[in-house]
């Protein structure tokens, strides 16, 4: 009998999620595929371009339903992005879909020149991002993508936290004639409680509070929320949790508001260099906001081996790890 798969949520974390009434939804990647298919059914200009990635991008049903709207380029990521730019120049709404690790490294020059510099409204979709591929190792991890794309002009960068943000981000990207990078993982995500609807460039407050703020992005937001809840129950702390789904343009006012709490922890499934944490630190420094500050993410070292859940736990990207970090800050 094989060992049980490691899980992203400890029994205690699951219990808190349950007590909050949170339900586990689909993987954002699945929601991406469903949403793009529904957009494409109503508009033949909506295309998926894949680099032997329709399976990993969950685009098999798309290819079967709309074979004329999927362009397969084979295992050739540079060509994927170049062809996507050419198609976009013809008015196509192109979702260039490939594992984030390859899309944002091997094709970086095509992203920089053919998409961003040429202002071609390609939707770059980085699938199985961060450490989603877990034990496949560093070749398959994308811990650099936010850093490199932040350094390129003219691209919106969106990292949805749950299914709701995923659907909204895809619809906004399809509507806007600008380059986008969308980053999805493949683990099922809890639906986050929210009162605000998704707005590009405006971070969403998931839980209000004034003692400490978690500024989290993507699939780490849920862990920050569970940590905040636990700290409230066990320590009486009132922690704010913000989903910074748009990394560019960054919602600086939400970051400054978080800084006013006096303690800020940034959380990301990314190397701590060049990602959300450093972007927030820069925004706080520019505004002269002094606060206690920590960045949770993957440090600059050979990433520990294991499943995504192992890696998250090892680096403290969990309810337990983040609540511990918060206590160290107080």
């Amino acid at each position: 009998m094989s060992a049980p798969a490691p899980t992203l949520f400890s029994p205690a974390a699951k219990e808190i999620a349950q007590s909050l009434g949170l339900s586990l939804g689909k993987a954002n990647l699945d929601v991406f595929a469903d949403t793009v298919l529904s957009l494409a059914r109503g508009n033949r200009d909506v295309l998926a371009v894949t680099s032997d990635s329709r399976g990993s991008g969950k685009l098999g049903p798309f290819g079967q339903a709309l074979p004329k709207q999927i362009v397969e380029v084979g295992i050739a990521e540079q060509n994927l992005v170049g062809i996507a730019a050419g198609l976009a120049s013809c008015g196509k709404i192109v979702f260039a879909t490939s594992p984030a690790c390859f899309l944002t490294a091997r094709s970086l020059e095509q992203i920089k020149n053919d998409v961003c510099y040429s202002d071609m409204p390609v939707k770059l979709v980085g699938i199985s991002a961060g450490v989603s591929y877990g034990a496949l190792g560093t070749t398959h991890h994308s811990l650099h993508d936010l850093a490199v794309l932040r350094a390129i002009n003219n691209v919106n960068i969106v990292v949805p936290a749950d299914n709701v943000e995923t659907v909204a981000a895809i619809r906004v990207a399809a509507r806007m004639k600008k380059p986008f990078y969308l980053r999805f993982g493949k683990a099922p995500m809890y639906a986050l409680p929210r009162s605000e609807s998704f707005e590009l460039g405006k971070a969403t407050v998931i839980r209000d509070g004034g003692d400490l703020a978690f500024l989290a992005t993507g699939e780490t937001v849920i862990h920050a929320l569970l940590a905040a809840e636990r700290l409230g129950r066990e320590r009486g702390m009132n922690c704010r949790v913000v989903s910074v789904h748009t990394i560019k343009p960054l919602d600086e006012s939400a970051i400054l508001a978080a800084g006013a709490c006096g303690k800020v922890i940034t959380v990301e499934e990314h190397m701590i260099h060049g990602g959300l944490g450093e972007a927030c630190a820069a925004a706080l420094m520019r505004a002269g906001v002094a606060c206690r500050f920590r960045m949770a993410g993957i440090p600059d070292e050979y990433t520990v081996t294991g499943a995504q859940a192992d890696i998250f736990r090892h680096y403290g990207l969990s309810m337990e790890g983040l609540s511990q970090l918060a206590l160290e800050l107080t």
Partner: protein
Amino acid sequence: MPLTDQQLRLKSVQYRRQLLHYIHLAGAGHTGGSLSSVDILNVLYNRVMNVSPANFASPDRDRYVQSKGHSVESLFVVLADKGFYPLGELETLCHYKSHFVGHPTRKVPGVEMNTGALGHGLPVATGMAIGAKLDEKAYRVYTLLGDGELAEGSNWEAAMAAAHYKLDNLFVVIDHNTLQITGRTREVCSNDPLDAKWAAFGFTIREVDGHDIHALTRALADAPAPGKPTVVIANTVKGRGISFMEDVGKWHHGVPSDAELAKAMAELDRAEQALKEAAR
């Protein structure tokens, strides 16, 4: 009225004059490759493609992507002649805040894609050609590559896809001047046998003298083999038209001095005179 071969030859002389003038004025430019590619651009824009300021927003226009973006000066003078902007605007070439930088950008009217990093034009052109097929449009897509540029692997990724998608609306033109910045392409990293490579990738091969207006016209305009992309291997001379620049590597991005410019202009005057006399 269609232009005659003679009129196009005279235009080529004029383009050479203009691009040398503006490179000299800017103190920068890719002289050798602009001179080797200018006859190709002349034929494309004045005889083969349906591209003009009047139709540049039309989805039915032909597309041109200059993958060897560094030879931008030949493109800039041809676009000016086509009426996309006044020629005099090239006085700002490489100046502070000018759109006329050292590689094509879409801020310059008439430019389809920002290029300059090598190995990008063919993938983008392939996407445009797939777009034409999806929309059942008749336009053609032309992209100009350098021969040194063929070492970039992305070209061959796109070549595979172009054949796979049976893109007979795609024409790859190689400015085969056999020189790159370090020296002879054959010695730097040989791409021989060039024709056999493209044939193996599924292209129809058309090999021509890249300075022969008539031969270029046929190679660029004739109907393609159905279901196959076309490569036009245009055998050219780097620095073509100026005796002391021809086939000399240092003119890759050499800028003529005042004296060299005067000498070059005198040679072009004589070439123009000879063309006119031959036509009498």
